[in-house]
């Protein structure tokens, strides 16, 4: 387990070192007005929404599901909050708006859970419905405009600091919470059981529906919080672009982190590393000045390299080791 995470971690470090080579000040941290600044802080901060969504996605994937709607849900969260805040500058309005948004996200999660666990629709199309319609809803809320707000309390979520950027703290808090809840209660084990063998789990008396329902709600709430961060970061709700394709990044983070799309055993730490790798990759592209037209090729190469490094078979191909067939 520890060993399994070693290689992704090395890949992450390698990427960071690449940045350091190009920008010598990349690792430098500096305090300014009690805020911590630096390249690493930026990576964490910008990676926070992806990380949050990837956390929710990890649990969904562990149950053999997938949630494509997270980007749309994030957009809805931002839209609802910003429209609720409007021109108000009061903290109370901001909190009410955020609470409203998160409750709504939970409802959307229930909806996904209903389609998957209740109606038995394949997760990918069940959530495709909300992926498409959800963005429409977000635009309906904002009437297609970019809604700009000017609310200091709301700014804190995505752009505020308590020494570290608040978004990092929130993401780490959620990570800790999920880790605690799934590993200290039996939830994690039951999720994995449902993901590996749904029928055997059912016959062992596991409430698989409730569990599936729970993970979709959790994923939606995570997406909601991420949506708040994204929108708060720029103090505006962009229904069309907020969280666009973030589901792909999140799934990629989960998969790089070593969780199989076929469900079953998952690793939250893996997801954390995966999300950081993805964000570092993006940041690297910006810092080392990869031309936009080469960006995608660069990303493709890095992604493949990262995967090859951590694939046991690829390493085994170099050093001669026997390869056992899974049975």
């Amino acid at each position, binding site marked *: 387990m520890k060993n399994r995470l070693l290689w992704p971690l090395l890949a992450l470090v390698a990427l960071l070192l690449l940045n350091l080579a190009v920008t010598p000040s990349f690792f430098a941290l500096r305090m300014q007005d009690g805020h911590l600044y630096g390249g690493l802080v930026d990576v964490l901060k910008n990676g926070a929404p992806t990380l949050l969504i990837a956390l929710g996605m990890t649990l969904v994937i562990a149950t053999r599901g997938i949630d494509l709607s997270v980007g749309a849900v994030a957009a809805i969260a931002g839209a609802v909050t910003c429209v609720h805040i409007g021109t108000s500058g009061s903290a109370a309005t901001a909190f009410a708006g955020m609470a409203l948004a998160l409750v709504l996200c939970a409802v959307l999660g229930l909806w996904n859970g209903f389609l998957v666990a209740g109606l038995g*629709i394949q997760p990918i199309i069940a959530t495709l419905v909300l992926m498409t319609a959800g*963005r429409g809803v977000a635009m309906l809320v904002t009437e297609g405009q970019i809604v700009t707000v000017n609310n200091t309390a709301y700014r804190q979520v995505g752009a505020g600091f308590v020494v570290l950027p608040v978004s990092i703290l929130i993401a780490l808090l959620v990570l800790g919470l999920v880790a605690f809840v799934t590993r200290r209660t039996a939830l994690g084990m039951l999720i994995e059981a449902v993901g590996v063998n749904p029928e055997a789990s059912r016959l062992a008396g596991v409430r698989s529906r409730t569990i599936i329902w729970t993970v979709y709600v959790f994923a939606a709430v995570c997406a909601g919080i991420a949506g708040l961060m994204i929108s708060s970061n720029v103090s505006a709700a962009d229904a069309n672009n907020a969280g666009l394709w973030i589901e792909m990044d999140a799934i990629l983070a989960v998969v790089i982190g070593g969780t199989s799309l076929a469900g079953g055993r998952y690793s939250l730490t893996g997801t954390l590393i995966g999300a950081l790798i993805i964000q570092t990759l993006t940041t690297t592209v910006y810092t080392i000045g990869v031309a936009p037209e080469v960006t995608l090729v660069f990303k493709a190469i890095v992604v493949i390299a990262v995967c090859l490094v951590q694939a046991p078979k690829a390493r085994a191909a170099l050093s001669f080791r026997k390869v056992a067939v899974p049975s």
Partner: protein
Amino acid sequence: MTTLTQRVPSRFLPVLATVVLLVLAFGFGSVRYDGFASGQVIANLFIDNAFLIVLAAGMTFVILSGGIDLSVGSVVALSTMVTASGLQAGWPVPLVVLAVLLTGSTLGLLMGLVIHKFDIQPFIVTLAGMFLARGLCFLISVESVSIKDRTFRDVATTAIELPGGVTITYNVVIALLVVAAAMYVLHRTRFGRTVYAVGGNESSALLMGLPTTRVKVGVYVISGLCSSLAGLLFSLYMLSGYGLHAVGMELDAIAAVVIGGTLLAGGVGYVLGGLAGVLVLGTIQTLISFQGTLSSWWTKIVIGVLLLVFIAVQRTMVRR
């Protein structure tokens, strides 16, 4: 529905349910909109989605084997780019076609080999393939390139007259041929049946002594080939090459295949299901454009709702 359930083997039900739904949707459209009840509207469904039909056919192979291919949309874009710039550079048409098909299959082969040899999840490998193919487009040119070649234009604009004054294009013919070929391969050849076996249970298939390597790599070659062919059809359809063509089309292809009743986990499904899925997506779009009064956001919402109606009704029909 009970009589239906009894007479038709249950595995055909999803496809059948989809077809019934399509008929219902067309009935609804004809009653509601002028000009909807015409053969040409149905023909347009095929004309406008020929490339998606081909993509879905290739994707069916991959999904049946338990994999997924996210690169198809980008490979379509790359194919249009290769076509357009090749023609611009004065290459003869057959050479261009060959180059495109070769590019697609080679990319598929490479992805398949990486997936199989190094045991990396198809999702990541094909996602990297997606980046790579689109990146290559931009390396060729960031701007869109027009196709001015006469042969190409002629093929693109030729209308084949069907009885009843309905016209279709060569694209449709090619797409339907691909579907037929895919059906043949999947159902009548050892390769095809092994695709099902691998998707059903890979380790069993291996222990049964089936050529799983060939299949696991082969499906990506097929999907790559289909993507590049779809790219050619797309070039004919658009008469241009562009790096931003077909953004997100992989999702359409996957959705079509899954809507048609193919299990994402692999092992269960039909090519015809994919075709039906494409037609469902196309019909939703046609209904919306005939409505013609929806704002951008209502368009999205209605697409989602119609999609939901289709899959939920299909689901209840299949459930009995």
